[in-house]
């Protein structure tokens, strides 16, 4: 058993060594009469505090794997256990609630609400909690300070640079202190300098707060910041590289 630290409150909770266990995970899609196998039986163990990069060519199944881990897609076969919950067996409603409590998403295109300020965007997931308005504001401010945007709280997304928008996206992902952060090409829309800053931020979240991160990337430079990399090809894990 280890301990993990809440990024926004600083409280500690007891943990077990493995956070996520995937066994025989398959995902097929049907297009007309044709059935396409995107994942063809994947077994993965993700230890708590891991920083895992998923790489592979387009269509290899890495984004599908990330979606399955985040509970926004369902496996056709196999089991997904995250922190003791078989999420493949949850109903749609249960899965939605589970996502709110346990997963933080970081998107390539940030997907911030343009009508809200940075602070309001970060506060958004907290609307689903029973926290008071004052507590929500406090936590959103703490998350934004953590990503280095304490002075941009009242700015709307259109008033921020791409790198800053992604930082807001990361603050939104960590504000509920989820078990796992899932990042889909987080630097894919950024220049190298901004991308490096985002990767450094993710690495710091992993290092300093022991956050478990799974990141899909095409970029070997980005993958190099992770603790290990899984290479997928044609729906299967081809190789693994640890650092």
């Amino acid at each position: 058993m280890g301990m993990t630290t809440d990024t926004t409150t600083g409280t500690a909770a007891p943990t077990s060594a493995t956070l996520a266990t995937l066994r025989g995970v398959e995902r097929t899609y049907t297009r007309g009469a044709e059935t396409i196998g995107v994942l063809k039986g994947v077994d993965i163990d993700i230890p708590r505090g891991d920083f895992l990069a998923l790489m592979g060519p387009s269509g290899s199944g890495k984004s599908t794997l990330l979606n399955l881990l985040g509970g926004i897609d369902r496996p056709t076969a196999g089991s997904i256990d995250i922190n003791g919950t078989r999420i493949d067996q949850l109903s749609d409603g249960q899965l939605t609630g589970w996502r709110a409590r346990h997963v933080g998403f970081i998107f390539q295109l940030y997907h911030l609400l343009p009508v809200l300020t940075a602070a309001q965007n970060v506060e958004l997931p907290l609307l689903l909690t029973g926290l008071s308005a004052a507590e929500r504001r406090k936590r959103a401010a703490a998350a934004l300070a953590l990503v280095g945007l304490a002075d941009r709280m009242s700015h709307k997304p259109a008033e921020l640079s791409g790198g800053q928008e992604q930082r807001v996206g990361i603050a939104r992902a960590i504000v509920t202190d989820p078990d796992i952060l899932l990042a889909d090409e987080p630097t894919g829309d950024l220049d190298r300098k901004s991308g490096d800053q985002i990767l450094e931020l993710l690495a710091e979240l992993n290092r300093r707060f022991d956050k478990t991160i799974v990141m899909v990337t095409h970029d070997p430079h980005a993958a190099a910041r992770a603790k290990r990399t899984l290479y997928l090809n044609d729906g299967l894990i081809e190789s693994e590289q640890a650092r």
Partner: protein
Amino acid sequence: MSWGRLLWANLWRRRTRTVFTLLSVLSAFLLFGVLAATHYAFVGGIDLVGDGRLIAMNKVSFTQPLPLAYQGKIAAVLGVKSVGKANWIQGYYQEQRNFIPWVATDDAYLDMFEEIVITPEARRRWGAERTAAVIGADLAKVYGWKVGDKVPMRSGIWRNQDGTNTWEITIVGIYTSNNAAYDQGSLLTRYDYFDESRTYGKGSAGWYLIQLEDPAAGATVSGAVDALFANSSAQTKTATEKAFSASFASQIGDVGAIVTYVGIAVLFSMLLVTATTMAQAVRERTAELAVLKALGFDQRRIVAMVLGESVLVTVLGAALGLGLAWLLVTGLYPALARFMPAFKLTAEPVALGFVLALVLGALAGIWPAVQAMRLRVVDALRRA
């Protein structure tokens, strides 16, 4: 930030579109409010008419006279407390466009209207002076008339024996009413002054107003009065004052039906405009809605957000439209009070307006909400 703030922020995402949608809803409810006030002026006021009075008029038409002798005969019918006579004069002041509802009548008529409030001095002078006239407070306000003024009033129907169509009247009282919806724009003068000087139709009355001993005996008394003149050359048609008012209003047209049809057409257009706006808003926000779902916003919250936004538009538009309608009706009232004393936007249509706004807002938002609910996170994000 609160859910309300989120709704509000989403509403103003496209300012121009929201403003135009709001204007469309506002126009619909402005028209709804003005039509409701018009409807009330024609039909709603009828409910305020006393039940304890009957009107006997010529069975052929309201415009045909009844012999003056009928007054005494009707007074003798069992259950009748008093009978007053009246003649419609179609009055105007100086020019025909200055129309004034003018009725020549007698003491009994004046006394049985508890809605007409005049001072004892005015009542005394009415009885004592042949040219005495009592006018409504709204009418007095329009022309600045006061007690003691002598006014040359003209008739659009009758001729005076002096060769003109003018009767000089003396204002002896200005009546108000204890009922806010009661007409305060009429002119009442003495029947005898009018009858003795008119060139034709002498010795007849336009209609008789009958006060009942017991308001519940209306049907029996009206039957008895009509039976009394069943074989005469001038048969009567006797009905409650309320029925008379309703029949008078229906001569103008079925105002209720017109208001309803126009209202439905306008509100239906508004429904289409709002539904289109909401469908567009949801389509534009596909990726955002998908992200909200990914963050853990459940179906209930997504539906509530879309419906909430739609209802917010219609309720806000309704509030602005009905508010504007109230201002307009209140502003026009002094000018229209003489013709439509009950031209008022009452609480009932306002409440109905807000209920309609809620229902139409929800209806307009249903399909976009269903679309948002059906949205699959993975597909929507891939499309984005």
